[in-house]
Every structure is written in C-alpha cells, then in structure tokens.
C-alpha cells in the first residue's frame, strides 16, 4: 500500500489522533472517578475529596453490598439469563435466517414483510403482559428470554450474511447427499463465525443490560437481574426529603454503595469485550455488504 506523505495527510493524522485522545480522556475520566469513589472512605466521599484516585482506601461499600447477598444473587441471575437467553436467541435466529436467505423459499417476501412489522409496531406493555401471563410464563425465566427470542434487526443482519455465501457450496454439498440441515450445520455455520460472534455479542449485551422486563414479570426481587437491582439501589440511596434516621448513622456512604454497584455491573462486560472486539468491529459492517 502506498503511504500518503503529503502535509494534508499528516495534519489529518494528527487531528484524528488528538480527537481520539480527547474522546478517550472524556470516556475514561468518569470511569476512573467512579472506581476511585467506590474504593474511598465515606468521610472522603461526603467531603468531596475524591477525584481520580481513592482517598482513605476502604472496601466498606463492597462489604456492605456483598453482605446482603442481593447483588451477588442478582449477578448470578444476570449470568443465567444472559447465557440461556443468548443461546435461545442464536438458535432461533440462525435457524430462521438461513431459510430466509434461500431465494427459492416459498412466500419468502411475505415472511420478510412479517419480520419488518414488529420493528415498527408493538402491542404495548399491558397487552404484552396479559399475553405473557396467559401463556403461563409470568414469574418464570421464560418471560425474560422468550419474548425477544428473535430480534428482527439481528435476523436481517444474519440473513444478509448468509446470502453472501456462495450458493455453489450448498450445491456441491447437495451432490454429496447432504440435506438442508446438514448443509446448515456443517457448512454454513462454520463459515459464519464472524457473524455469529457479532450477533451473539449483540444479544448478550442486550440481555446483560436489560432490567425492565424482569421488573414487570417477576413477583419476587430475588429473581431480578443485576441491572434491576442496580436501579433499585440507585433509587433507594437517593436522599429522602426528610431524614431517615439510619441515613444519619450509616457508616457506609450511599454514594459509595451506588458507585460500587456500578463497578460490579461494569466489570464483566469490560473483561469480555477485548476478546470479542475484533468480531464486533468487523461484524457491524457485515449486514451492509451484499453479494
């Protein structure tokens, strides 16, 4: 590749790098601040002494969180719903995307239109709730993982990727006696790892961040995922209009608890993301290129 050594190219490079550094700082500073507060003492937090480094290092907030067991249980719930939900998502999405990618599928256009409709229209909260309840899924994990089992958006991305695979591969497999399912399992899927990883990440992040459905469909807070508990903690620790007496003598700062919970919820995604980053960058563009 010929490198552009012109002045404008160099200036452009500098501008890009400076901009990205600014964006990096703007993104990183709040995260460092949150982490610093989570590891600081209540006094230091209340006095506003913490900026980018913990002051009077303390694990009191984390101890308080893990003592109740609520966050740990919610963390486990989140992992469970994410793994189960993502597995169901991928199974159903791939199995729907593949046949839709075959041009010879009867009523293909009709199915494509049906997929598009839910992207724009929904039943609303109450009808959906009634539907879930009448199907016997209320207060079960299925209310969380089944309703959004196939995302139209992800389905279209995956379908488009499958359409880009050469039809000759399929034809040669058919000549060797492979049926549709064998072709799907042994040829299509292995060639689609980038797309599968991307869509898996989309679904997994969606499950990890979701909080609303759990709040609506679970009776007991012991079934709530981490984000719903985090929301409850943030709201609970807002200062009330009048003082609650245990707010006065609480040895752990409410801010410390809030920020510690934020750190706990951030860590899994921050750990996982570097390993799937390359798929994410590559996969975002997958659905945009056809043929």
């Amino acid at each position, binding site marked *: 590749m010929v490198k552009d050594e012109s002045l404008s190219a160099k200036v452009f490079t500098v501008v890009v790098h400076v901009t990205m550094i600014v964006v990096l700082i703007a993104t990183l500073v709040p995260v460092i601040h949150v982490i610093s507060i989570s590891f600081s003492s209540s*006094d230091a*937090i*209340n*006095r*506003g002494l913490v900026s980018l480094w913990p002051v009077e290092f303390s694990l009191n907030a984390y101890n308080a969180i893990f003592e*109740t067991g*609520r966050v740990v249980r919610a963390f486990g719930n989140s992992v469970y719903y994410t793994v189960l939900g993502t597995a169901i998502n991928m199974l159903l999405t791939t199995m729907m995307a593949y046949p839709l990618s075959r041009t010879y599928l009867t009523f293909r*256009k*009709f199915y494509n*239109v049906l997929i598009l409709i839910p992207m724009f229209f929904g*039943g609303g*909260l*109450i*009808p959906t*709730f*009634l539907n879930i*309840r009448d199907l016997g899924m*209320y207060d079960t994990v299925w209310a969380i993982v089944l309703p959004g089992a196939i995302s139209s958006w992800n389905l279209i991305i995956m379908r488009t990727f499958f359409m880009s695979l050469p039809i000759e591969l399929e034809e040669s497999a058919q000549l060797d006696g492979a049926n549709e399912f064998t072709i799907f399992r042994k040829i299509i899927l292995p060639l689609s790892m980038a797309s599968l990883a991307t869509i898996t990440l989309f679904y997994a992040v969606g499950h990890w961040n979701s909080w*609303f459905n759990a*709040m*609506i469909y679970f*009776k*007991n*807070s012991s079934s709530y995922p981490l984000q719903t508990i985090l*929301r*409850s903690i943030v*709201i*609970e620790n*807002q*200062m009330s*209009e*009048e*003082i*609650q*007496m*245990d*707010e*006065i*003598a*609480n*040895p752990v700062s409410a*801010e410390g608890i809030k920020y510690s919970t934020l750190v706990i919820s951030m860590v899994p995604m921050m750990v996982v993301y570097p390993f799937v980053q390359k798929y994410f960058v590559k996969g975002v563009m997958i659905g945009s290129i056809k043929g």
Partner: protein
Amino acid sequence: MKKFLSLLLVAGMLASMTACSGGQNSSQQSSSSQQASSQAESSSESAPSKPAEPIKMDALYEVSKNRIPNRPSLVDEKLKEMFNVELNWIDQDTSVYNEKINTLLASDDYPEVFWNLNHPASVKNMGLEGYLVALNPYLDSMPNYKALWSEADFQAMLASCSSSDGNLYFTPTQNYRTASMSWVYYKSEFDKNGWEVPKDVQGLYELLKTIKAANPEAVPMSGRGKWSNAIGGLRVAYGVTNKKSYVDPYTNEFVPYGYVVDGMREAIKWGNTFYAEKLIPADYMTYTDNEWTADIANGRDYIEYQYVERAQYAETNIASFDPNADYDFTSFNISADPSKGYVYERENSWFEYGYSFSDKINDVEGGLEAILGWIDWISTDEGSTFFCMGEEGKTYEKNADGTLQFMPDMYHATRNPEGKHEWEYGLYMGITRQSEDYTREVGKDTNVTISKYFNEDSNAHYTNPVALTFTTEEESRLNTLDTQIDDVADEYINKFIMGTLNPADDNDWNAYLAAMNNAGLEEASKIRTDAYNRGK
C-alpha cells in the same frame, strides 16, 4: 399479495379487539357498595369476634430500601392471635410502583389488601376506577381510629383525602407533629464568633456577609438544589407558606398561587442579592445532595431553613472535619417584619398514606372487618406501642421512669448504629399513629420540640394547609395547567435569582406575570378559588 396482507392485518385487528373484555369494575363497585352498607351495619352492631377459620388474604407490602421483614413477623403473629388473619405478603419495591401497579390491576392479579401504599394520587384514582372499597360507611366502626383526630380535623382530613367522588379509599395516618422546619445553624461556630441568628431578613443578610468575610470558602446559606430550597426560608419570612394555594396567615385571605404575590417577589429580590454576593451556592439550580452534604462535611454551610432533624445529620457528617461541631435549630422563624411576629409552615394533622382494600376483599368473609379491627386496635395506646416498639423483652425494655427504650441489640443512631431495625420485625410500616417512645428513640423528637415551640409562641402565625377538592374535570384540567405554570415559574424565578432578569424592575416582573397568565394562571386560579369556596 397486497390484498392478502391487508386481509391478514384486518383479521389480526379484529381478533385483538374481541379479546378480553374489561370494565367489570363499575358493576363490581355497585355490588360492593351494597355489600358495604350491610357489612357496615352489622359491624356497628357488634364488636368483631375472632373467627374460627383462618381468614386468608393477599396483602401488597410496599418496600423501600429493601426493608423486607423477616417472616412470619411479629405483626403476622399478632394478626393471627387477635383476628385469625393469615396474610400472603406480596413485597413490592417502591421504585417500581408505577409500572407494577398498572400491570397488576390490568391483569386482575391484585391483592385484597394494600397494606401501606404511599401514593395518594394513585390510590384516589384506583378508587375512582372501581378497584377499591370506599371506607366511608366503616369509619364509625373504628372509634379508636376516629379518636386520633378532633371532629374538626377529622372532617378536614376527609375533605382532603377523599377522591373527587367524595369517597375515602384509604385510611390516613395521624401526624405526630404540627411543624418540622426552622433555621438549622452551625451553633458551635456561632458561639465561637459571637454570632446570633437574627429575627429579620436584613439581619440574616448582614450575618451571611459576616460569615463570608470570616470564611471566604463558606457557602453561608447552602441547601439542597433548586430555587425552592435556596430561598425557601425567605419565602416563609414573607408569609408565603406555599408556592401554590394557601391562606394568608395575616389577612386570612385565600391565595391561589403564591408564585406571583408581593411577598414572593420580595423573597426573590433577596435571593438575587444573596446569589450576587455568593451567599448561596452559585450552582444552586443543579446542586446535588452530594454537593450539599460536602458543604456541611467541610464546614462551609452555616445556616439554612431546613427540617430540624437535619441538625443531627449535619453533626454526623461534619464529625471528621470538626469533631466538636454542634448544630442546633431556632425556636422561631426569621420574619420580614418581626413586629408582626413570624410565620411557620403548619402541617396537616394527617399523612396521606394508609391501608386500602380492593373490591376482592368483599369475597373474603370477614376479611374487611378483621383488618378494620386491626386498624382500630393499632390506634389504641396498646396497639400503637406494639406496632412501633414491638414486644417487651424482645425488642424493647421499660426504663425506671416508665419510658420505653429499644433493646441494646436494636438499632439506635448513637447506641447501636448497626443494630436490628424495627422493620425487620414487620413493625412500624402501616401505623396509624406513632408512639411517643418511638418518636424519641428514632430521633424524631426534634419535630415534637419545634412543634411545641411554635404552638406555645404567641408570635407564631400560621394557617392550616388548604384542603381543595376538585371535580374530575377540574383535576384533569388543573394537572395540565399546573405543569405549564410550574415550568414558567421555574424559568423566571431562576432568571430573577441569577440576575438575568431584575426582580426589582417592574417591567421584568410584569413580563413574568404575563408569561404566567399565558400559561393559564387565571384559569387555574379560578379553579382553585372555586374549590376553596366550595369547601369553606
């Protein structure tokens, strides 16, 4: 193809329209009111006796800060012992109340008893929509509950807490105090410097300037965010006891909107002066609770109009900065004209939260009677002591002077900050009255103290909060108008305080009044005035 798709969509729409009919609540309400009359009659004729068979019902328990009792709790045991009631508790986090309550009602999955809902507007609407039992016919069957108020207060409470159909759908709770706010100040610093809390606004201004000169880092009159907190004390100093409707304590005239009266203008002028001289936080508009707490914790906050309980909050937070810090509160309020006395914000003798009962309770024989009996019992001295303090020897002990004190292993702000809380035993949540011992034990006796100061001070002026009952149409219209009016008021008052507009300039003030009228102030004022005149 297009025709096929159109037919499919039409079929889908027709199917959804014919699914699940609702609207049975109106017929349920008419039958429930008939049952209510007969039940009320029978309950007034004889005291409730404990039924042989357990009465089983679902009860929704609103939980805040994850304060879920250990069950079966002392309350469960007492309900069983006295009324043979067994409640199946549905714990509902208050942070998800709005979303959950709608889905529960829509799915017909709501309980017989709502134990402690703290959403009066929502409860009133639920009553209007037919989900709740009207309690008016049953009030006479709860003599101890009724006795929590004088007859005049009871009628005022009914007028205020009833829905627009005139029915009471929940049992309000007695308020143990008449006032809760005065001027909280950094007493140890005041004593050290020979400062005194002044009686008038000019004196307050001089004091704040003195403090600022002595400590340039100070935010002499800090506060929680928004203009309403920044100049709240100044507003009261000028006799404006409410941003919206109140009765002037000096003239006894009804004021529909305190936003636009002369007293508010004077308070805003002072706010503008304080802001310009950095005597209040520069970013008061967006001041967070953390920033306010940081002012206290760093010894920068010297005086503010606050809940008197916050004196202890301040002492706790400033402890590492100033271990000998002492905060106190005044026994008077600062006034614009001390020769006329001062005004304080008097509270209603009730809180607008309590028990509600859904129409489903009519299907549980003896259910409503049993819980009403419970409510009446916890309104007695014995019941109130149990529900606030628990059981002697288990959660509280008796002192030599006869007062009650929580056991050493129970929570207390100074004796045992890590002790067990009364809510763990199912106590306190759902009280109808708060016992004196409990008030003292949880540090709320400062409210009793300030109430006593004001009640006994002939210089203290007040009027009771106005009880306005609107028709359904008025309420709906007022909600829309008040949203607009609040927005305009917030915008202009902030501009006045921050100096973008001049509150002393008649042109600017008239522009504010014109903007308020454009937002519907005149119409809203008429609605409020009519409601007030109807209720007089």
